[in-house]
C-alpha cells in the first residue's frame, strides 16, 4: 500500500512539471466538484464536468484531469464533496502539483440559482479570481452560465455565441423583474372600466369608489329608462285612442291623459340625461385620477407593510446580477 502511494506521488510530481510546465507556460489548475446547495449532487457534478470541458475549450489554463484529482482525494481519504475547506483544497493542490485550484458552490434560493466560484493560489492560498452569478429559470439553463463562467474565471471574455445563447435562451431574470406598472397603463384600464386603473394601481378603495359610483348611476339610468319606456308606451296608446275618438268629452280626456304621459316621459328622459352626464363626468374624473395618481410607489407600500414585514429580505440586484440580503432598521417615524 505504502509502495503504491509512493509510486503514485512520484508519478504526479515527476510527470506534472515535465508534461504540464515543461512545455507550456500556462498555469496549471485543478477543479474540485462544486458543492450543491439546493440541487442534487448529481446535478452539481454534471455542471462541474461541463465547467471543466468549457475551461479546457477556453484554453487559458492547463487543466488537470478529473480522474487524477479523484485519485488524490480518495488516496487522502476525502470524498470529493467533503473537500470543501481551504486547507483540503490547498493540500490536494499541492499533491497534484498544480499552481491554482478552482472550487465553488451552486445554490438555489426559491426559483433563483446562485453560482459562487473562486480560483485561488495553492502556494499562497490567496484568491486569484472570484465569480458569482444568479440565474432564474430552469436548472438546465445553468449550463450556459457555467460555460460563460469558465471563460470568465480564466480571465477571458466569453465568446459571442455563448453570450447570445444566454440572451436568447433563459437569461438571468432579476427577482424584481415583474412588469413595471405605469400611469398610462392605469389610465388605459380606467378608460375601459371605471376603477380598473385604480385596482391595477393597487388603490382598491378608489377602485371600488369609481366602480360602484358608475354602477349606481347605471342603476339610476336603468330605472329612469324603464320609466321613460313605460310612459312612452302609454303615451302612444293614448294618442291612438285620441286620434280615433269622435266624442268631444273623450277627446279631451284622452288628450289630458296623453299630456300627462308625455310629461312623465320627458321627466324620465331628463333624469336619465342628467345621470348620463354624471356618469360621463365621473368616468372622466376616474380616468384623470388613474393617470395622475398612477401605481403606488414602493414607499407607499412600505408605509402599510413596514409594521409586519421582516427586516431581513432577499433581494436581487439586476445590475450586479447577484442575490443580496437586505437588512433594514427603522430609525424613527
Amino acid at each position, binding site marked *: 500500500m505504502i509502495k503504491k502511494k509512493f509510486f503514485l506521488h512520484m508519478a504526479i510530481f515527476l510527470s506534472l512539471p515535465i508534461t504540464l510546465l515543461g512545455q507550456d507556460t500556462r498555469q496549471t489548475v485543478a477543479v474540485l466538484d462544486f458543492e450543491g446547495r439546493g440541487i442534487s449532487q448529481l446535478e452539481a457534478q454534471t455542471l462541474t464536468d461541463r465547467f471543466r470541458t468549457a475551461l479546457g475549450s477556453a484554453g487559458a489554463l492547463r487543466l488537470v484531469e478529473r480522474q487524477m484529482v479523484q485519485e488524490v482525494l480518495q488516496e487522502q481519504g476525502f470524498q470529493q464533496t467533503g473537500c470543501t475547506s481551504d486547507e483540503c483544497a490547498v493540500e490536494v493542490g499541492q499533491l497534484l502539483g498544480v499552481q491554482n485550484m478552482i472550487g465553488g458552490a451552486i445554490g438555489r434560493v426559491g426559483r433563483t440559482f446562485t453560482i459562487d466560484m473562486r480560483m485561488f493560489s495553492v502556494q499562497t492560498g490567496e484568491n486569484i479570481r472570484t465569480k458569482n452569478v444568479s440565474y432564474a429559470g430552469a436548472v438546465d439553463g445553468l449550463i450556459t452560465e457555467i460555460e460563460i463562467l469558465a471563460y470568465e474565471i480564466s480571465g477571458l471574455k466569453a465568446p459571442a455565441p455563448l453570450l447570445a445563447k444566454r440572451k436568447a435562451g433563459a437569461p438571468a431574470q432579476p427577482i424584481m423583474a415583474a412588469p413595471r406598472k405605469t400611469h398610462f397603463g392605469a389610465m388605459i384600464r380606467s378608460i375601459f372600466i371605471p376603477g380598473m386603473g385604480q385596482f391595477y394601481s393597487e388603490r382598491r378603495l378608489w377602485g371600488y369608489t369609481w366602480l360602484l359610483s358608475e354602477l349606481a348611476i347605471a342603476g339610476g339610468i336603468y330605472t329612469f329608462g324603464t320609466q321613460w*319606456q313605460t310612459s312612452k308606451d302609454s303615451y302612444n296608446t293614448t294618442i291612438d285612442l285620441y286620434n280615433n275618438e269622435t266624442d268631444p268629452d273623450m277627446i279631451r280626456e284622452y288628450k289630458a291623459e296623453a299630456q300627462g304621459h*308625455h310629461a312623465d316621459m320627458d321627466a324620465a328622459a331628463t333624469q336619465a*340625461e342628467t345621470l*348620463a352626464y354624471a356618469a360621463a363626468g365621473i*368616468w372622466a374624473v376616474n380616468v384623470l385620477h388613474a393617470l395622475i395618481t398612477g401605481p403606488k410607489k414602493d414607499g407607499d407600500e412600505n408605509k402599510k407593510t413596514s409594521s409586519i414585514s421582516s427586516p431581513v429580505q432577499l433581494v436581487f440586484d439586476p445590475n450586479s446580477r447577484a442575490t443580496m440580503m437586505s437588512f433594514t432598521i427603522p430609525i424613527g417615524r
Partner: protein
Amino acid sequence: MLGFLRCTLRWFSGRLTFFTIFVALFVSCDVPTEVYDNPLDEEAAEEVGIDTPALVFFPDKFEVTAGSSISIQLYALEVIDVAGAHIQLSYDKSLVSVNLINAGDFFSSTSDPVFIYEDDPDAGIIDIYTSFLGADSTTVSGTGNMATLVLGTTTSGQSTISYTAESELVDRNDNPVELKGLGQGEIVAQ
C-alpha cells in the same frame, strides 16, 4: 321595450368610447313632439285656423293605395241650435269618385230627418240637404256626424275635398247659423 333595450345596450357598449355614451343614450331615449291633431278637438282645430262653429272632416288625412276606397265623415263641430243644413262639397273628380253617401246620426237622435244628396261627378260637387221636419222641430247642438261618404280613388295622386262657401246651417226658423270655419280633407293615393 325594444327601444329601451336598444337604449340600454347602446349605453353599455358606449362605455368603450366617450362620445358614444351621449349619442347612443340621447338618440335612443328621445321624447316625441306632442301632436294633438284630432279634427274634432276644438283646441286643435283652432290651432290650424278653424274656429267653431265649423264643419270638418273626420279623419281629415288619408294615405291609401290607388284604387282603394275611403270612408270620410262630415262633422258639425260645436254648433248651437241647428235644425237643418245644406252641405256642399267640392272634390277632385279626376282622382276620386263618390261611391256612397249615408246620413249621419247627428239629426237622427230625436226623429227621422230628411236626408237628400246629389252628386255631380262632372263638376266634382256634392250637395247634401238634411233637416228636421215641421215648424216645432227640435234642434241639436254640440258636435255630431251629419253624413258619411265612401269615396273611391281612381288613380294615384294627391287631392283635397272641401266644404264650399255655399254650405250653411239653419235654425228651426230657417235662419242661418253662423259658421266660422270650414275644414278640408286631404287624400293621398299611391
